[in-house]
C-alpha cells in the first residue's frame, strides 16, 4: 500500500466512495444529516488510521483531539461570537495541533500498553476539564447556542443538511488527498518502516521519536478539524465527544473497516453508524449488543476487517476464474 515499490496512481475503485457519496446526496435526501456525520467520522477514522495503521501508534485517546476541536469551535461561536466556519476550523485545528505536539512529545517516548494508558489518561483529563469548566463549556448539559455563519457568506446550513453534507464531503476529500499523498510518499514509507521494524529505522539513522511526534500532530490536527465539523453540523457540543467511549467507538469503526488500508477508514464508519442508526431505532436499549456481535464476527472471521475479507474473496474469485479458464483450454 505504501513505499518505494508501490504504484501511486489512483485506481478506478478509489473513485467509488466519492461516487457513492454524491449518489447518496441526490438519492437519499432524508438521510443527509446522518450522511454528514458519517463523513465526519470517516475523516476522524482516517486520522486514526494514519497513526495506528501506518505508524503503529496505538491509542485510546484520539477523542481528546476530536473533542478539543469540537469544543474550540463551539466555545468560539457560543461565547465569543466567532461564527465564520473556516475561522472556527482553523482555530480548532490549531488547538488540536498544539495539544497533539505537547502530549505527543511526552507520551511517544513510551510504547505498547504504557502508551495506550497514557493516551487514555489524556482524553480523560480533557473530558474532566470540559466537565468541570461549566462557565465555558456548559459542563454535562453541553454547549448550546452554537451558530455558524453561512459558508463564504453564501451557503447557509439548512435544516435538511444539504450544505453540511457537501461541506463535510469537501473537507473529507481534502483530508483524504493529504493522507493518500502522505502514505505513498517517502514519509509514509518511513512510517511503515517504523511500524514494521523500529530498531532498524533507528539503525539507518531515522529520528524515530521526532517523526512519530510529527505524524501524531498531523493526525491530531485532522481529528480536531473533524471535531469542529461535528460541532458546526450539530450546532451543539456535548461531553460525549471526549473520553474513552468515542475513542473506543472510533477504534471499533477502524477495525471493522480494516486497519492500515486507507479505505478501511471509509468502510468502517459507514457500517458502524448505519448499523447504529438502524439498531438504535429497533432496539433503543440494546443497540450496543448488535455492534458487539458485528465486532466479534469481524475479528473472528474477517481478519483485516471488512476490506481485508473482501480482498481475500476477490483474490480467490480471480484465482478461480483463472483456473477455470486454464482448464477450459
Amino acid at each position, binding site marked *: 500500500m505504501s513505499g*518505494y*515499490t508501490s504504484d501511486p496512481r489512483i485506481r478506478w475503485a478509489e473513485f467509488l466512495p466519492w461516487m457513492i457519496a454524491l449518489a447518496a446526496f441526490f438519492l437519499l435526501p432524508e438521510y443527509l444529516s446522518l450522511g454528514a456525520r458519517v463523513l465526519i467520522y470517516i475523516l476522524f477514522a482516517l486520522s486514526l488510521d494514519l497513526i495506528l495503521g501506518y505508524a503503529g501508534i496505538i491509542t485510546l485517546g484520539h477523542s481528546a483531539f476530536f473533542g478539543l476541536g469540537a469544543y474550540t469551535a463551539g466555545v468560539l461561536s457560543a461565547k465569543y461570537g466567532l461564527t465564520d466556519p473556516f475561522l472556527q476550523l482553523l482555530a480548532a485545528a490549531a488547538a488540536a495541533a498544539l495539544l497533539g505536539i505537547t502530549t505527543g512529545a511526552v507520551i511517544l517516548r513510551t510504547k505498547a500498553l504504557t502508551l495506550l494508558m497514557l493516551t487514555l489518561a489524556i482524553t480523560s483529563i480533557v473530558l474532566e476539564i470540559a466537565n468541570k469548566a461549566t462557565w465555558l463549556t456548559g459542563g454535562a448539559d453541553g454547549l448550546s447556542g452554537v451558530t455558524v455563519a453561512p459558508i463564504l457568506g453564501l451557503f447557509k446550513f439548512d435544516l435538511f443538511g444539504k450544505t453540511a453534507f457537501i461541506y463535510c464531503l469537501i473537507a473529507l476529500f481534502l483530508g483524504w488527498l493529504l493522507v493518500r499523498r*502522505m502514505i505513498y*510518499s517517502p*514519509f509514509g514509507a518511513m512510517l511503515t518502516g517504523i511500524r514494521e521494524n523500529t530498531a532498524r529505522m533507528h539503525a539507518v539513522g531515522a529520528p524515530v521519536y521526532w517523526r512519530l511526534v510529527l505524524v501524531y500532530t498531523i493526525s491530531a490536527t485532522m481529528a480536531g478539524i473533524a471535531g469542529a465539523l461535528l460541532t458546526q453540523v450539530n450546532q451543539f457540543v456535548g461531553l460525549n465527544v471526549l473520553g474513552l467511549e468515542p475513542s473506543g467507538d472510533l477504534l471499533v469503526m477502524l477495525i471493522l473497516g480494516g486497519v492500515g488500508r486507507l479505505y478501511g477508514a471509509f468502510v468502517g464508519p459507514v457500517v458502524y453508524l448505519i448499523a447504529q442508526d438502524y439498531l438504535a431505532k429497533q432496539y433503543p436499549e440494546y443497540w450496543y449488543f448488535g455492534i458487539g456481535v458485528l465486532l466479534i464476527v469481524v475479528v473472528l472471521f474477517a481478519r483485516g476487517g471488512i476490506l481485508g475479507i473482501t480482498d481475500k474473496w476477490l483474490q480467490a474469485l480471480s484465482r478461480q476464474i483463472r483456473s477455470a479458464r486454464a482448464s477450459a483450454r
Partner: protein
Amino acid sequence: MLDNVALGIAERDGVSRRMWKPASKHSEITDEAMQLLATLALTSDARTPVKDLPYGRQRLVEIAIALGLKPKVLLLDEPAAGVPSQDSGRILEVLAGLPGDIAILIIEHDMDLVFRFAQRITVLVQGQVLVEGRPDEIAADRRVRDVYLGEATHA
C-alpha cells in the same frame, strides 16, 4: 525488499521527511537502491518480501542496507555465517570491491575469509587479546596456530 534498502538511502539523503511526491517517483532513491541490489546480485528479488527470501539472501539485504548508508566504517559480525557458499562468495566480492577509505571491522572464525581480507588481525582467545599483527605474522605465529589454525584438537 527494495523498500528496505530505499528507506536507508532516503534517510541518508534526507528525503524521508518529504510528504507529497510519491516515494516510487523519487527515482534518485529507487535507482540507487536498484544499483546496489545489482552489485549484490539481488535484482531478481527486488519485489519479494524479505521474509520470503532464503536466509543467505536476507543477510545480503542487510549488507545492502548498510552499504546504502555510505558508511565510513563497517562493522561486520560473521557476515558469511549461515550463508550458502555461492552467496557468501558474492558478499566477499562486494566487500573486496568497496573503496579503500571505508574501514571494515570483521569478526570471523572462517580463517580463509580472514586471511583473504585482513590487513591487520587481532586474535582473541577467551575474551583476551592473544596477539595482534599483519596476516603473515599471524599465520606464522605458533600460539595462533595452536589455538585456531591447528589440528582439530581443541584446548
